[in-house]
Protein backbone atom coordinates (compact mmCIF):
# COMPACT_ATOMS: atom_id res chain seq x y z
CA UNK A 1 0.00 0.00 0.00
CA UNK A 2 2.47 2.55 1.28
CA UNK A 3 5.15 1.27 -1.07
CA UNK A 4 2.83 1.75 -4.05
CA UNK A 5 1.83 5.22 -2.89
CA UNK A 6 5.47 6.21 -2.44
CA UNK A 7 6.28 4.82 -5.88
CA UNK A 8 3.62 7.00 -7.52
CA UNK A 9 4.75 9.97 -5.42
CA UNK A 10 8.39 9.59 -6.50
CA UNK A 11 7.60 9.42 -10.18
CA UNK A 12 5.09 12.27 -9.80
CA UNK A 13 7.54 14.58 -8.05
CA UNK A 14 10.25 13.80 -10.60
CA UNK A 15 8.19 14.62 -13.66
CA UNK A 16 6.54 17.45 -11.68
CA UNK A 17 9.95 19.07 -11.22
CA UNK A 18 10.32 19.22 -15.02
CA UNK A 19 6.87 20.78 -15.32
CA UNK A 20 7.94 23.26 -12.65
CA UNK A 21 11.00 24.28 -14.69
CA UNK A 22 8.84 24.65 -17.79
CA UNK A 23 6.26 26.63 -15.81
CA UNK A 24 8.99 28.94 -14.51
CA UNK A 25 9.96 29.50 -18.15
CA UNK A 26 6.37 30.47 -19.03
CA UNK A 27 6.28 32.75 -15.99
CA UNK A 28 9.52 34.58 -16.83
CA UNK A 29 8.42 35.42 -20.37
CA UNK A 30 4.86 36.20 -19.34
CA UNK A 31 6.11 38.66 -16.73
CA UNK A 32 8.43 40.42 -19.15
CA UNK A 33 6.01 40.64 -22.07
CA UNK A 34 2.52 39.18 -21.35
CA UNK A 35 3.33 36.62 -24.03
CA UNK A 36 2.47 32.94 -23.50
CA UNK A 37 5.35 31.25 -25.23
CA UNK A 38 3.92 28.13 -26.88
CA UNK A 39 7.45 27.21 -27.97
CA UNK A 40 8.44 26.55 -24.34
CA UNK A 41 7.94 22.79 -24.78
CA UNK A 42 10.33 22.80 -27.75
CA UNK A 43 13.13 24.11 -25.51
CA UNK A 44 12.58 21.07 -23.27
CA UNK A 45 12.76 18.78 -26.29
CA UNK A 46 15.75 20.65 -27.71
CA UNK A 47 17.69 20.33 -24.44
CA UNK A 48 17.21 16.57 -24.37
CA UNK A 49 17.88 16.02 -28.09
CA UNK A 50 21.00 18.22 -28.15
CA UNK A 51 22.40 16.53 -25.03
CA UNK A 52 21.96 13.15 -26.76
CA UNK A 53 23.58 14.47 -29.94
CA UNK A 54 26.58 16.11 -28.20
CA UNK A 55 27.21 13.05 -26.01
CA UNK A 56 27.06 10.77 -29.06
CA UNK A 57 29.49 12.99 -30.93
CA UNK A 58 32.06 12.27 -28.21
CA UNK A 59 32.00 15.39 -26.04
CA UNK A 60 32.51 14.80 -22.29
CA UNK A 61 29.18 14.83 -20.42
CA UNK A 62 29.58 18.20 -18.64
CA UNK A 63 30.56 20.01 -21.84
CA UNK A 64 27.72 18.34 -23.72
CA UNK A 65 25.21 19.43 -21.09
CA UNK A 66 26.41 23.03 -21.01
CA UNK A 67 26.20 23.25 -24.81
CA UNK A 68 22.73 21.66 -24.71
CA UNK A 69 21.61 24.51 -22.46
CA UNK A 70 23.41 27.31 -24.32
CA UNK A 71 22.13 26.46 -27.81
CA UNK A 72 18.43 26.56 -26.81
CA UNK A 73 19.11 29.83 -24.97
CA UNK A 74 20.45 31.30 -28.22
CA UNK A 75 17.39 29.96 -30.06
CA UNK A 76 15.18 31.63 -27.43
CA UNK A 77 16.95 34.94 -27.91
CA UNK A 78 16.63 34.65 -31.69
CA UNK A 79 12.87 34.10 -31.38
CA UNK A 80 12.62 37.14 -29.15
CA UNK A 81 14.68 39.39 -31.43
CA UNK A 82 13.18 38.28 -34.73
CA UNK A 83 9.59 37.52 -33.88
CA UNK A 84 8.46 38.98 -30.56
CA UNK A 85 10.12 42.40 -30.36
CA UNK A 86 8.84 43.58 -33.78
CA UNK A 87 5.20 42.95 -32.80
CA UNK A 88 5.21 44.23 -29.24
CA UNK A 89 1.71 44.93 -27.99
CA UNK A 90 -0.04 42.79 -30.61
CA UNK A 91 -3.22 40.90 -29.74
CA UNK A 92 -3.00 37.72 -27.67
CA UNK A 93 -4.06 35.49 -30.59
CA UNK A 94 -1.40 36.98 -32.87
CA UNK A 95 1.31 36.32 -30.30
CA UNK A 96 0.05 32.78 -29.70
CA UNK A 97 0.26 32.04 -33.44
CA UNK A 98 3.77 33.50 -33.69
CA UNK A 99 5.09 31.33 -30.87
CA UNK A 100 3.30 28.29 -32.29
CA UNK A 101 4.94 29.06 -35.63
CA UNK A 102 8.29 29.17 -33.84
CA UNK A 103 7.60 25.84 -32.17
CA UNK A 104 6.76 24.27 -35.56
CA UNK A 105 10.03 25.58 -37.02
CA UNK A 106 12.08 24.19 -34.11
CA UNK A 107 10.26 20.83 -34.15
CA UNK A 108 10.52 20.55 -37.94
CA UNK A 109 14.23 21.40 -38.00
CA UNK A 110 14.92 18.88 -35.23
CA UNK A 111 13.10 16.18 -37.22
CA UNK A 112 15.09 17.05 -40.35
CA UNK A 113 18.47 17.15 -38.58
CA UNK A 114 18.16 14.36 -35.96
CA UNK A 115 15.44 12.19 -37.51
CA UNK A 116 12.16 11.07 -36.01
CA UNK A 117 13.52 8.29 -33.80
CA UNK A 118 13.36 8.06 -30.00
CA UNK A 119 16.61 8.77 -28.15
CA UNK A 120 17.93 8.13 -24.69
CA UNK A 121 20.69 9.54 -22.50
CA UNK A 122 22.63 7.46 -19.93
CA UNK A 123 21.70 8.32 -16.33
CA UNK A 124 24.25 10.72 -14.75
CA UNK A 125 25.17 8.46 -11.83
CA UNK A 126 24.23 4.90 -12.70
CA UNK A 127 20.99 2.94 -12.80
CA UNK A 128 21.27 1.33 -9.36
CA UNK A 129 17.82 1.95 -7.80
CA UNK A 130 17.58 3.12 -4.19
CA UNK A 131 15.10 1.25 -1.99
CA UNK A 132 12.95 3.39 0.31
CA UNK A 133 10.17 1.68 2.33
CA UNK A 134 9.60 -0.84 -0.43
CA UNK A 135 9.50 1.74 -3.23
CA UNK A 136 12.36 2.27 -5.65
CA UNK A 137 13.86 5.62 -6.49
CA UNK A 138 16.19 6.05 -9.46
CA UNK A 139 19.34 8.11 -8.83
CA UNK A 140 18.39 10.26 -11.85
CA UNK A 141 15.24 11.36 -9.97
CA UNK A 142 17.49 12.76 -7.26
CA UNK A 143 19.39 14.67 -9.94
CA UNK A 144 16.12 16.13 -11.27
CA UNK A 145 14.89 17.13 -7.81
CA UNK A 146 18.26 18.40 -6.59
CA UNK A 147 18.95 20.57 -9.63
CA UNK A 148 15.39 21.93 -9.62
CA UNK A 149 15.76 22.86 -5.96
CA UNK A 150 19.05 24.64 -6.69
CA UNK A 151 17.47 26.48 -9.63
CA UNK A 152 14.61 27.67 -7.43
CA UNK A 153 17.02 28.97 -4.78
CA UNK A 154 19.21 30.69 -7.39
CA UNK A 155 16.16 32.30 -9.00
CA UNK A 156 14.94 33.48 -5.61
CA UNK A 157 18.32 35.05 -4.94
CA UNK A 158 18.38 36.57 -8.43
CA UNK A 159 14.97 38.21 -8.12
CA UNK A 160 15.39 39.41 -4.54
CA UNK A 161 19.04 40.31 -4.22
CA UNK A 162 20.39 41.39 -7.61
CA UNK A 163 19.78 44.54 -9.60
CA UNK A 164 18.98 42.70 -12.85
CA UNK A 165 16.50 40.48 -11.05
CA UNK A 166 14.79 43.45 -9.47
CA UNK A 167 14.68 45.19 -12.85
CA UNK A 168 12.86 42.16 -14.26
CA UNK A 169 10.38 42.18 -11.38
CA UNK A 170 9.79 45.90 -11.79
CA UNK A 171 9.08 45.43 -15.50
CA UNK A 172 6.53 42.73 -14.71
CA UNK A 173 4.71 45.01 -12.26
CA UNK A 174 4.54 48.04 -14.49
CA UNK A 175 6.38 48.31 -17.76
CA UNK A 176 5.98 52.03 -18.30
CA UNK A 177 6.99 52.90 -14.76
CA UNK A 178 10.03 50.65 -15.09
CA UNK A 179 11.05 52.46 -18.28
CA UNK A 180 10.60 55.81 -16.53
CA UNK A 181 13.10 54.88 -13.83
CA UNK A 182 15.60 53.91 -16.51
CA UNK A 183 15.18 50.13 -16.77
CA UNK A 184 16.02 48.79 -20.19
CA UNK A 185 12.82 46.77 -20.71
CA UNK A 186 14.02 45.39 -24.04
CA UNK A 187 17.02 44.00 -22.22
CA UNK A 188 14.66 42.44 -19.71
CA UNK A 189 12.68 40.84 -22.52
CA UNK A 190 15.91 39.55 -24.08
CA UNK A 191 17.07 38.09 -20.77
CA UNK A 192 13.72 36.50 -19.97
CA UNK A 193 13.74 34.55 -23.26
CA UNK A 194 17.33 33.40 -22.73
CA UNK A 195 16.59 32.33 -19.15
CA UNK A 196 13.34 30.55 -19.85
CA UNK A 197 14.82 28.68 -22.82
CA UNK A 198 17.77 27.63 -20.65
CA UNK A 199 15.43 26.50 -17.84
CA UNK A 200 13.33 24.46 -20.24
CA UNK A 201 16.42 22.87 -21.81
CA UNK A 202 17.79 22.05 -18.37
CA UNK A 203 14.56 20.26 -17.44
CA UNK A 204 14.62 18.41 -20.75
CA UNK A 205 18.20 17.23 -20.22
CA UNK A 206 17.58 16.05 -16.66
CA UNK A 207 14.46 14.07 -17.47
CA UNK A 208 15.66 12.47 -20.73
CA UNK A 209 17.41 9.49 -19.04
CA UNK A 210 14.03 8.66 -17.42
CA UNK A 211 11.42 9.49 -20.07
CA UNK A 212 13.45 9.31 -23.34
CA UNK A 213 12.99 12.01 -25.95
CA UNK A 214 12.06 12.50 -29.58
CA UNK A 215 11.43 15.44 -31.91
CA UNK A 216 7.76 15.64 -30.85
CA UNK A 217 8.27 15.18 -27.10
CA UNK A 218 7.96 18.91 -26.48
CA UNK A 219 4.28 19.37 -27.31
CA UNK A 220 2.74 17.66 -24.29
CA UNK A 221 5.59 18.80 -22.00
CA UNK A 222 5.01 22.40 -22.99
CA UNK A 223 1.23 22.23 -22.63
CA UNK A 224 1.55 20.65 -19.19
CA UNK A 225 4.08 23.30 -18.19
CA UNK A 226 1.47 25.87 -19.28
CA UNK A 227 -1.12 24.08 -17.12
CA UNK A 228 1.30 24.25 -14.18
CA UNK A 229 1.94 27.97 -14.70
CA UNK A 230 -1.79 28.76 -14.92
CA UNK A 231 -2.54 26.49 -11.96
CA UNK A 232 -0.14 28.48 -9.80
CA UNK A 233 -1.45 31.77 -11.15
CA UNK A 234 0.24 33.20 -14.25
CA UNK A 235 3.22 35.34 -13.41
CA UNK A 236 3.78 33.91 -9.93
CA UNK A 237 7.17 32.15 -9.60
CA UNK A 238 6.34 30.23 -6.43
CA UNK A 239 2.98 29.32 -7.93
CA UNK A 240 4.75 27.89 -10.98
CA UNK A 241 6.87 25.56 -8.85
CA UNK A 242 3.94 24.45 -6.68
CA UNK A 243 1.77 24.08 -9.79
CA UNK A 244 4.40 21.96 -11.53
CA UNK A 245 4.81 19.57 -8.60
CA UNK A 246 1.04 19.37 -8.10
CA UNK A 247 0.41 18.56 -11.77
CA UNK A 248 3.16 15.92 -11.72
CA UNK A 249 1.94 14.24 -8.52
CA UNK A 250 -1.75 14.24 -9.46
CA UNK A 251 -0.95 12.93 -12.93
CA UNK A 252 1.11 10.09 -11.52
CA UNK A 253 -1.49 9.26 -8.82
CA UNK A 254 -4.29 9.39 -11.37
CA UNK A 255 -2.39 7.14 -13.76
CA UNK A 256 -1.66 4.69 -10.95
CA UNK A 257 -5.00 4.57 -9.14
CA UNK A 258 -7.56 5.61 -11.77
CA UNK A 259 -6.62 5.04 -15.40
CA UNK A 260 -3.27 5.07 -17.13
CA UNK A 261 -4.96 5.59 -20.50
CA UNK A 262 -6.27 8.96 -19.32
CA UNK A 263 -2.94 10.02 -17.77
CA UNK A 264 -2.43 12.88 -20.23
CA UNK A 265 -5.98 14.17 -19.67
CA UNK A 266 -5.57 14.56 -15.90
CA UNK A 267 -3.68 17.91 -15.91
CA UNK A 268 -6.30 19.41 -18.23
CA UNK A 269 -9.27 18.17 -16.18
CA UNK A 270 -7.53 19.58 -13.12
CA UNK A 271 -6.94 23.01 -14.66
CA UNK A 272 -10.54 23.27 -15.90
CA UNK A 273 -11.84 22.57 -12.39
CA UNK A 274 -9.42 25.00 -10.79
CA UNK A 275 -10.27 27.75 -13.29
CA UNK A 276 -14.02 27.20 -12.81
CA UNK A 277 -13.66 28.04 -9.13
CA UNK A 278 -10.51 30.17 -9.03
CA UNK A 279 -10.34 32.12 -12.32
CA UNK A 280 -6.78 33.26 -11.56
CA UNK A 281 -5.26 29.99 -10.40
CA UNK A 282 -4.13 29.16 -6.89
CA UNK A 283 -1.88 32.16 -6.20
CA UNK A 284 -2.82 34.56 -8.99
CA UNK A 285 -2.97 38.23 -8.13
CA UNK A 286 -6.41 39.79 -7.96
CA UNK A 287 -6.72 42.32 -10.72
CA UNK A 288 -9.11 45.14 -11.26
CA UNK A 289 -9.84 46.43 -14.72
CA UNK A 290 -9.17 50.08 -15.38
CA UNK A 291 -11.76 51.62 -17.59
Amino acid at each position, binding site marked *: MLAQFLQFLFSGVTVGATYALAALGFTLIYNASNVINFAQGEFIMLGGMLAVFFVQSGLPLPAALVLAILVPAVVGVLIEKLAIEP*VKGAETVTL*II*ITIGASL*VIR*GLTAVIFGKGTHSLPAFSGDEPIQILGATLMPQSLWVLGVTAIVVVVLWYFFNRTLSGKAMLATSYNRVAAELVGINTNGVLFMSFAMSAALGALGGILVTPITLTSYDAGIMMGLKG*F*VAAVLGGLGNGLGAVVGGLLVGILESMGAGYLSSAYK*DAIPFVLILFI*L*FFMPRGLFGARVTDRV
Partner: protein
Amino acid sequence: MQKRAYFGLYIVIAILALLPLVLPNSFYMDLAIRMAINAVIVLGLNLLIGFAGQISLGHAGFLGIGAYASAVLPTHFGWHPLLAMGAGAAATGLLAALVARPIFKLKGNYLAMATLGLGIILNIALRNEAQWTGGPDGMPVPAFGLFGFELNSDKHWYWVVAILLSVSVWASLNLIDSPFGRALRALHGSEVASRVVGVDVVRYKVAIFVLSAVFASLMGSITAHYVGFVTPNLADFFHSIELVTMVVIGGMASVYGSLVGAVLLTALPQALATFEGWETVVFGAILMICMIFLPKGLVPTLAAKFGKGE
Protein backbone atom coordinates in the same frame (compact mmCIF):
# COMPACT_ATOMS: atom_id res chain seq x y z
CA MET B 1 -22.44 49.55 -46.53
CA GLN B 2 -25.28 47.04 -46.74
CA LYS B 3 -25.20 46.96 -50.55
CA ARG B 4 -21.45 46.64 -50.75
CA ALA B 5 -21.48 43.80 -48.20
CA TYR B 6 -23.97 41.86 -50.33
CA PHE B 7 -21.91 42.59 -53.43
CA GLY B 8 -19.21 40.38 -51.93
CA LEU B 9 -21.77 37.64 -51.29
CA TYR B 10 -22.81 37.69 -54.97
CA ILE B 11 -19.18 37.32 -55.99
CA VAL B 12 -18.77 34.36 -53.64
CA ILE B 13 -21.88 32.70 -55.07
CA ALA B 14 -20.70 33.37 -58.63
CA ILE B 15 -17.29 31.84 -57.93
CA LEU B 16 -18.86 28.81 -56.27
CA ALA B 17 -21.24 28.33 -59.21
CA LEU B 18 -18.53 28.62 -61.87
CA LEU B 19 -15.75 26.75 -60.07
CA PRO B 20 -16.80 23.20 -61.11
CA LEU B 21 -16.50 24.27 -64.77
CA VAL B 22 -12.84 25.21 -64.43
CA LEU B 23 -11.59 22.60 -61.95
CA PRO B 24 -9.46 20.25 -64.08
CA ASN B 25 -9.78 17.03 -62.06
CA SER B 26 -11.07 15.36 -58.92
CA PHE B 27 -7.98 16.34 -56.94
CA TYR B 28 -8.93 20.02 -57.23
CA MET B 29 -12.57 19.19 -56.66
CA ASP B 30 -11.63 17.50 -53.39
CA LEU B 31 -9.47 20.48 -52.41
CA ALA B 32 -12.33 22.89 -53.16
CA ILE B 33 -14.73 20.87 -51.01
CA ARG B 34 -12.34 20.84 -48.08
CA MET B 35 -11.73 24.57 -48.48
CA ALA B 36 -15.46 25.24 -48.36
CA ILE B 37 -15.93 23.03 -45.29
CA ASN B 38 -13.12 24.84 -43.48
CA ALA B 39 -14.51 28.19 -44.59
CA VAL B 40 -17.83 27.51 -42.86
CA ILE B 41 -16.08 26.49 -39.62
CA VAL B 42 -13.82 29.53 -39.79
CA LEU B 43 -16.79 31.87 -40.36
CA GLY B 44 -18.27 30.62 -37.09
CA LEU B 45 -14.96 30.80 -35.27
CA ASN B 46 -14.32 34.32 -36.56
CA LEU B 47 -17.61 35.47 -35.04
CA LEU B 48 -16.20 34.30 -31.70
CA ILE B 49 -12.56 35.37 -32.07
CA GLY B 50 -12.72 38.32 -34.44
CA PHE B 51 -16.02 39.96 -33.57
CA ALA B 52 -16.50 39.03 -29.92
CA GLY B 53 -12.78 39.02 -29.14
CA GLN B 54 -12.78 35.67 -27.32
CA ILE B 55 -10.18 32.95 -27.93
CA SER B 56 -10.90 29.27 -28.44
CA LEU B 57 -7.96 26.89 -28.79
CA GLY B 58 -10.20 23.83 -28.59
CA HIS B 59 -12.60 24.14 -31.48
CA ALA B 60 -11.38 20.97 -33.18
CA GLY B 61 -12.82 19.13 -30.17
CA PHE B 62 -16.31 20.26 -31.16
CA LEU B 63 -15.61 19.27 -34.75
CA GLY B 64 -14.65 15.86 -33.38
CA ILE B 65 -17.94 15.48 -31.50
CA GLY B 66 -19.90 16.08 -34.70
CA ALA B 67 -17.70 13.82 -36.80
CA TYR B 68 -17.81 10.96 -34.33
CA ALA B 69 -21.55 11.34 -33.71
CA SER B 70 -21.99 10.75 -37.46
CA ALA B 71 -19.63 7.79 -37.35
CA VAL B 72 -20.60 6.06 -34.10
CA LEU B 73 -24.38 6.49 -33.89
CA PRO B 74 -25.26 5.06 -37.35
CA THR B 75 -22.62 2.30 -37.13
CA HIS B 76 -23.24 1.01 -33.60
CA PHE B 77 -26.87 2.02 -33.03
CA GLY B 78 -28.34 2.14 -36.52
CA TRP B 79 -29.38 5.82 -36.30
CA HIS B 80 -30.27 7.70 -39.47
CA PRO B 81 -27.27 9.90 -40.45
CA LEU B 82 -29.37 13.07 -40.35
CA LEU B 83 -30.54 12.23 -36.84
CA ALA B 84 -26.96 11.44 -35.81
CA MET B 85 -25.78 14.78 -37.20
CA GLY B 86 -28.51 16.57 -35.26
CA ALA B 87 -27.67 14.65 -32.09
CA GLY B 88 -23.99 15.56 -32.48
CA ALA B 89 -24.84 19.23 -32.94
CA ALA B 90 -27.22 19.14 -29.95
CA ALA B 91 -24.64 17.43 -27.73
CA THR B 92 -21.99 19.95 -28.82
CA GLY B 93 -24.34 22.86 -28.14
CA LEU B 94 -25.20 21.46 -24.72
CA LEU B 95 -21.56 20.87 -23.78
CA ALA B 96 -20.54 24.31 -25.04
CA ALA B 97 -23.36 25.97 -23.11
CA LEU B 98 -22.51 23.99 -19.97
CA VAL B 99 -18.83 24.95 -19.92
CA ALA B 100 -19.28 28.43 -21.38
CA ARG B 101 -20.63 30.08 -18.23
CA PRO B 102 -17.65 29.29 -16.01
CA ILE B 103 -15.17 29.55 -18.90
CA PHE B 104 -16.21 33.02 -20.01
CA LYS B 105 -15.57 34.50 -16.64
CA LEU B 106 -11.97 34.01 -17.77
CA LYS B 107 -10.01 36.35 -20.01
CA GLY B 108 -7.12 36.25 -22.45
CA ASN B 109 -4.57 33.60 -21.62
CA TYR B 110 -6.71 31.93 -18.95
CA LEU B 111 -9.48 31.55 -21.51
CA ALA B 112 -6.93 30.13 -23.97
CA MET B 113 -5.88 27.60 -21.34
CA ALA B 114 -9.43 26.50 -20.53
CA THR B 115 -10.53 26.03 -24.15
CA LEU B 116 -7.24 24.30 -25.00
CA GLY B 117 -7.78 21.92 -22.06
CA LEU B 118 -11.33 21.15 -23.14
CA GLY B 119 -10.19 20.30 -26.68
CA ILE B 120 -7.38 18.06 -25.46
CA ILE B 121 -9.67 16.16 -23.06
CA LEU B 122 -12.15 15.52 -25.89
CA ASN B 123 -9.35 14.31 -28.16
CA ILE B 124 -7.90 11.96 -25.54
CA ALA B 125 -11.37 10.52 -24.92
CA LEU B 126 -11.79 9.82 -28.66
CA ARG B 127 -8.41 8.08 -28.73
CA ASN B 128 -9.08 5.94 -25.67
CA GLU B 129 -12.68 4.78 -26.13
CA ALA B 130 -11.58 2.35 -28.83
CA GLN B 131 -14.59 0.03 -28.48
CA TRP B 132 -16.76 2.85 -29.88
CA THR B 133 -14.37 5.05 -31.84
CA GLY B 134 -11.76 2.65 -33.18
CA GLY B 135 -9.09 4.42 -31.09
CA PRO B 136 -6.14 6.17 -32.76
CA ASP B 137 -6.79 4.33 -36.05
CA GLY B 138 -10.25 5.85 -36.45
CA MET B 139 -13.30 4.23 -37.99
CA PRO B 140 -15.28 4.21 -41.27
CA VAL B 141 -18.39 6.36 -41.62
CA PRO B 142 -21.51 5.12 -43.42
CA ALA B 143 -22.69 7.03 -46.49
CA PHE B 144 -25.13 9.91 -46.14
CA GLY B 145 -28.50 9.39 -47.77
CA LEU B 146 -31.76 11.29 -47.71
CA PHE B 147 -35.12 10.21 -49.17
CA GLY B 148 -33.49 7.33 -51.02
CA PHE B 149 -30.90 9.61 -52.64
CA GLU B 150 -27.32 8.90 -51.64
CA LEU B 151 -24.61 11.55 -51.61
CA ASN B 152 -21.75 9.59 -53.07
CA SER B 153 -19.84 11.62 -55.64
CA ASP B 154 -17.61 14.67 -55.29
CA LYS B 155 -20.10 16.61 -57.44
CA HIS B 156 -22.93 16.00 -54.97
CA TRP B 157 -20.82 17.01 -52.01
CA TYR B 158 -19.52 20.07 -53.81
CA TRP B 159 -23.02 21.45 -54.28
CA VAL B 160 -23.96 20.64 -50.69
CA VAL B 161 -20.99 22.48 -49.20
CA ALA B 162 -21.26 25.32 -51.75
CA ILE B 163 -24.85 25.96 -50.67
CA LEU B 164 -23.91 25.68 -46.99
CA LEU B 165 -21.07 28.15 -47.50
CA SER B 166 -23.26 30.69 -49.34
CA VAL B 167 -25.90 30.47 -46.62
CA SER B 168 -23.24 30.87 -43.92
CA VAL B 169 -21.74 33.95 -45.55
CA TRP B 170 -25.22 35.47 -45.92
CA ALA B 171 -26.09 34.61 -42.31
CA SER B 172 -22.80 36.01 -40.97
CA LEU B 173 -23.23 39.29 -42.87
CA ASN B 174 -26.73 39.64 -41.45
CA LEU B 175 -25.71 38.66 -37.96
CA ILE B 176 -22.95 41.26 -37.86
CA ASP B 177 -25.37 44.01 -38.83
CA SER B 178 -27.98 42.89 -36.28
CA PRO B 179 -28.33 44.10 -32.68
CA PHE B 180 -26.67 40.81 -31.71
CA GLY B 181 -23.63 41.56 -33.88
CA ARG B 182 -23.37 45.13 -32.61
CA ALA B 183 -23.46 43.81 -29.04
CA LEU B 184 -20.63 41.41 -29.88
CA ARG B 185 -18.49 44.15 -31.35
CA ALA B 186 -19.27 46.36 -28.39
CA LEU B 187 -18.02 43.80 -25.91
CA HIS B 188 -14.89 43.32 -27.99
CA GLY B 189 -14.28 47.06 -27.79
CA SER B 190 -14.84 47.37 -24.07
CA GLU B 191 -16.63 44.93 -21.84
CA VAL B 192 -17.22 47.42 -19.08
CA ALA B 193 -18.58 50.05 -21.46
CA SER B 194 -20.94 47.58 -23.09
CA ARG B 195 -22.17 46.45 -19.69
CA VAL B 196 -22.81 50.08 -18.81
CA VAL B 197 -25.05 50.55 -21.85
CA GLY B 198 -27.00 47.43 -20.93
CA VAL B 199 -25.42 44.60 -22.92
CA ASP B 200 -25.70 41.28 -21.08
CA VAL B 201 -22.05 40.46 -21.72
CA VAL B 202 -22.01 36.88 -20.44
CA ARG B 203 -25.17 35.90 -22.30
CA TYR B 204 -23.76 37.14 -25.62
CA LYS B 205 -20.41 35.43 -25.10
CA VAL B 206 -22.13 32.15 -24.27
CA ALA B 207 -24.47 32.49 -27.26
CA ILE B 208 -21.69 33.11 -29.77
CA PHE B 209 -19.54 30.34 -28.29
CA VAL B 210 -22.40 27.84 -28.58
CA LEU B 211 -23.19 29.03 -32.11
CA SER B 212 -19.62 28.64 -33.34
CA ALA B 213 -19.28 25.26 -31.60
CA VAL B 214 -22.45 23.99 -33.32
CA PHE B 215 -21.14 25.27 -36.69
CA ALA B 216 -17.96 23.26 -36.08
CA SER B 217 -19.90 20.16 -35.02
CA LEU B 218 -22.15 20.22 -38.11
CA MET B 219 -19.18 20.64 -40.42
CA GLY B 220 -17.44 17.84 -38.54
CA SER B 221 -20.38 15.58 -39.44
CA ILE B 222 -20.22 16.70 -43.06
CA THR B 223 -16.45 16.06 -43.17
CA ALA B 224 -16.96 12.59 -41.71
CA HIS B 225 -19.59 11.63 -44.31
CA TYR B 226 -17.67 13.21 -47.17
CA VAL B 227 -14.32 11.55 -46.36
CA GLY B 228 -16.02 8.32 -45.27
CA PHE B 229 -13.53 7.88 -42.44
CA VAL B 230 -12.76 9.65 -39.15
CA THR B 231 -9.60 9.69 -37.04
CA PRO B 232 -8.90 11.50 -33.76
CA ASN B 233 -6.50 13.81 -35.65
CA LEU B 234 -9.61 15.68 -36.76
CA ALA B 235 -10.03 16.75 -33.14
CA ASP B 236 -6.44 17.33 -32.06
CA PHE B 237 -4.72 20.44 -30.73
CA PHE B 238 -2.93 21.09 -34.01
CA HIS B 239 -6.21 21.18 -35.93
CA SER B 240 -7.62 23.68 -33.41
CA ILE B 241 -4.58 25.83 -34.03
CA GLU B 242 -4.98 25.51 -37.81
CA LEU B 243 -8.55 26.80 -37.53
CA VAL B 244 -7.53 29.76 -35.37
CA THR B 245 -4.69 30.50 -37.79
CA MET B 246 -7.16 30.58 -40.70
CA VAL B 247 -9.17 33.20 -38.79
CA VAL B 248 -6.16 35.36 -37.97
CA ILE B 249 -4.30 35.09 -41.29
CA GLY B 250 -7.45 35.83 -43.28
CA GLY B 251 -8.31 38.68 -40.99
CA MET B 252 -10.07 38.95 -37.68
CA ALA B 253 -13.58 40.36 -37.77
CA SER B 254 -13.71 40.03 -41.53
CA VAL B 255 -16.25 37.74 -43.19
CA TYR B 256 -14.35 37.60 -46.47
CA GLY B 257 -11.09 37.30 -44.54
CA SER B 258 -12.41 34.03 -43.11
CA LEU B 259 -12.90 32.72 -46.64
CA VAL B 260 -9.42 33.82 -47.74
CA GLY B 261 -7.81 32.32 -44.63
CA ALA B 262 -9.61 29.01 -45.08
CA VAL B 263 -8.73 28.79 -48.78
CA LEU B 264 -5.05 29.66 -48.28
CA LEU B 265 -4.39 27.44 -45.29
CA THR B 266 -6.23 24.47 -46.77
CA ALA B 267 -4.13 24.76 -49.92
CA LEU B 268 -0.84 25.43 -48.14
CA PRO B 269 -0.09 21.86 -46.93
CA GLN B 270 -0.75 20.63 -50.51
CA ALA B 271 1.61 23.23 -51.90
CA LEU B 272 4.23 22.34 -49.29
CA ALA B 273 4.11 18.61 -50.04
CA THR B 274 6.94 19.20 -52.51
CA PHE B 275 9.28 20.25 -49.67
CA GLU B 276 9.63 16.64 -48.48
CA GLY B 277 10.39 16.65 -44.79
CA TRP B 278 10.61 20.43 -44.56
CA GLU B 279 6.81 21.00 -44.60
CA THR B 280 6.59 21.69 -40.86
CA VAL B 281 9.50 24.14 -40.94
CA VAL B 282 8.13 26.08 -43.91
CA PHE B 283 4.58 26.06 -42.51
CA GLY B 284 5.81 27.42 -39.16
CA ALA B 285 7.95 30.07 -40.87
CA ILE B 286 5.01 31.21 -43.01
CA LEU B 287 2.80 31.55 -39.92
CA MET B 288 5.42 33.68 -38.20
CA ILE B 289 6.13 35.88 -41.20
CA CYS B 290 2.42 36.49 -41.85
CA MET B 291 1.79 37.46 -38.25
CA ILE B 292 4.85 39.69 -37.99
CA PHE B 293 4.22 41.63 -41.18
CA LEU B 294 0.41 41.40 -41.37
CA PRO B 295 -0.70 41.23 -37.74
CA LYS B 296 -4.23 42.25 -38.72
CA GLY B 297 -4.53 39.55 -41.35
CA LEU B 298 -4.57 39.66 -45.14
CA VAL B 299 -7.99 41.07 -46.02
CA PRO B 300 -8.15 43.94 -43.49
CA THR B 301 -4.53 44.94 -44.27
CA LEU B 302 -5.13 44.95 -48.02
CA ALA B 303 -8.49 46.69 -47.60
CA ALA B 304 -6.85 49.43 -45.56
CA LYS B 305 -4.08 49.77 -48.10
CA PHE B 306 -6.46 50.29 -51.00
CA GLY B 307 -8.65 52.59 -48.99
CA LYS B 308 -11.85 50.59 -48.97
CA GLY B 309 -12.85 49.43 -45.51
CA GLU B 310 -15.07 46.38 -45.41
